[in-house]
């Protein structure tokens, strides 16, 4: 998927398949009480729309030749950085319920700043500590929002 045309063909086909999945899923919806607009109608319409537009995109891109653009995908290091960023957010979400908002935020921000700028580990710790303190005192203590405080701060 290096060029726009190829990407559009691939994504168009993927969207069309997704549309078929939605159409299939809408046939599984049980109606319950009778209604002028049964619950499966709207998902069915949306599924058909996805199928038509997905196929249309793939077909249109396939027929148009000549004008094309390269998609600015990241290089190897960029892909690695992106993967680490997404994985670290996923870990942050997992740790949120286990360690609580303040500690999970501290760990996430420390790691992220350190990862994006290796030389600034002390700054990373200071900023993370401030954020963790704010998240505890502002969101959990002062505003009494139902954030997990974690085993050490409950």
């Amino acid at each position, binding site marked *: 998927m290096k060029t726009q045309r190829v990407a559009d063909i691939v994504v168009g086909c993927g969207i069309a398949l997704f549309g078929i999945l939605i159409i299939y899923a809408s046939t599984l919806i049980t109606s*319950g009480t009778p209604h*002028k607009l049964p619950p499966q109608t*709207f998902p069915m319409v949306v599924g058909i729309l996805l199928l038509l537009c997905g196929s249309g995109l793939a077909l*249109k891109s396939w027929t148009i030749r000549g004008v094309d653009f390269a*998609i600015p995908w990241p290089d190897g290091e960029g892909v690695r950085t992106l993967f680490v960023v997404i994985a670290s957010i996923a870990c942050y979400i997992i740790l949120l319920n286990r360690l609580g908002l303040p500690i999970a935020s501290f760990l996430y921000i420390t790691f992220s700043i350190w990862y994006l*700028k290796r030389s600034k580990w002390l700054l990373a710790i200071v900023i993370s500590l401030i954020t963790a303190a704010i998240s505890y005192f502002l969101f959990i203590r002062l505003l009494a929002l139902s*954030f997990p405080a974690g085993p050490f701060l409950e």
Partner: protein
Amino acid sequence: MGFSFDYLFQGFSIALTWQNLFWAAVGCFIGTLVGVLPGIGPVSGIAILLPLTAVLPPTSAIIMMASIYYGAMYGGSTTAIVVNIPGEASSVPTAIEGYELAKQGRAGPALAIAAIASFVAGTLSVIALTFFAPTLAQFAVVFGPPEYFALMFMGLSLVISLSGRALLKGIISMALGLTAGLIGQDPLTGAERLTFGSVTLTVGVDFIAIIVGLFAISEVMINVEQRLTSISKMEVKSWMPTWTDIKQCTGAMLRSSTVGFLLGLLPGCAPSVTSFVAYDVEKRFSKHPELFSHGAMDGLAATEASNNATSTAGFVPLFSFGLPTAPSMAVLLGGLMMYGLQPGPMLFVTNPDFVWAVIASMYIGNVMLLVLNLPLIGLWVRIVRIPFYILGPLIVFCALVGTYSVRFQTFDIWIMLLFGVIGYFMRKLGFPIAPMVLASVLAQMLETSLGQSLLISWGSPWIFFTRPISAVFMALAFLSIGRGVWAQIKAKAPEVVTDDAEY
């Protein structure tokens, strides 16, 4: 309910309470901060901060959100002028003229003129909003479910203009947004839909998680990939503009406020379009057109004035019809719905205190922005230098806290992350994001009003074409769709999102 000074004064009495003044000031400050920070646009900023306002009463929360919005619109000019980074497409002419002025050592006066132009345009537009919105709403109180459905259908047809040349991609984006909005229980019968047996999905996908993911998380991913760092070393010593500057810009501010406001009333006419139109108009009116692109203060004033006027004009269709005309308005619509408020003609009848307080707060907010921003120009310039390796993780923190605080469900933050990744690929592959946001916000309302209409008509879809108001909206929607399809057929070009389409 038409315009009445009593309502406006009542609105001022609510907006001038110390709590609302405080939240308006906080909103202006945070909004400007969000606009100033490179890498966060107004839409992302509002999306991140929207759930955080959930702890406030609805009026205070929306006053704060509106302040954040116009604060962010102003703040974007700082990065454009000082570091030549237009945060959004509408700031491109600001960057062209402002950065040239900055190179000539006139960054301070350029920033001050931007603030004054924003204030003038903002105030004139709020005056127009005060008279326009209730008049339109009065016309719209006769709305029933068929009219609402037709209106929302027309709203969805806005994907044509929000998609630029990428029509098929725009419709796909809209259909994906609708799909996300349909997950959970059917609003009319309670039947489970598209849950694939998952109990978690029964509660549905919260559109705030979708919005935050699409804008904030994907923005972080794009910036990380581009290894964005802070790049400004510029010092601003004096910000006071000369009388010549002010005289030169007065006409530009007034003309562009009018252009920006009138164009901003049209669906799909985003600030990114109107700022270029106003810039071009001003070039024709200017006594020194040769200075344009080389540091024309009136060109800068025109862009900033039209930018702010268009932003305020967007509140007219939002309040009167519940119709978001731009992505930022779609996010604000989500905010209103989060508080159980239904924007549209009945808003002026059912919640007059709220709507007039918000309008009154805009007058106050504009003054606050000017008072806050002129002395703080030096501070904003220093903030531009915050490196992204600090900013990025803090944006993720705010996004996570904001999304989680809506329903306190971990599932929502997974959805946020998922839509962050989807948003990243959509940007890379040239899919417009705005239609997805619009559709995910409107999905349930659209289906409910369709169901209610069909109940009234005993299942006949002709109800949408036999009632005059809904017939007009349906005709406009089909015209819009037809125009877009015809343009696509004629173009025979690859699906590319153009500059005039936001995202």
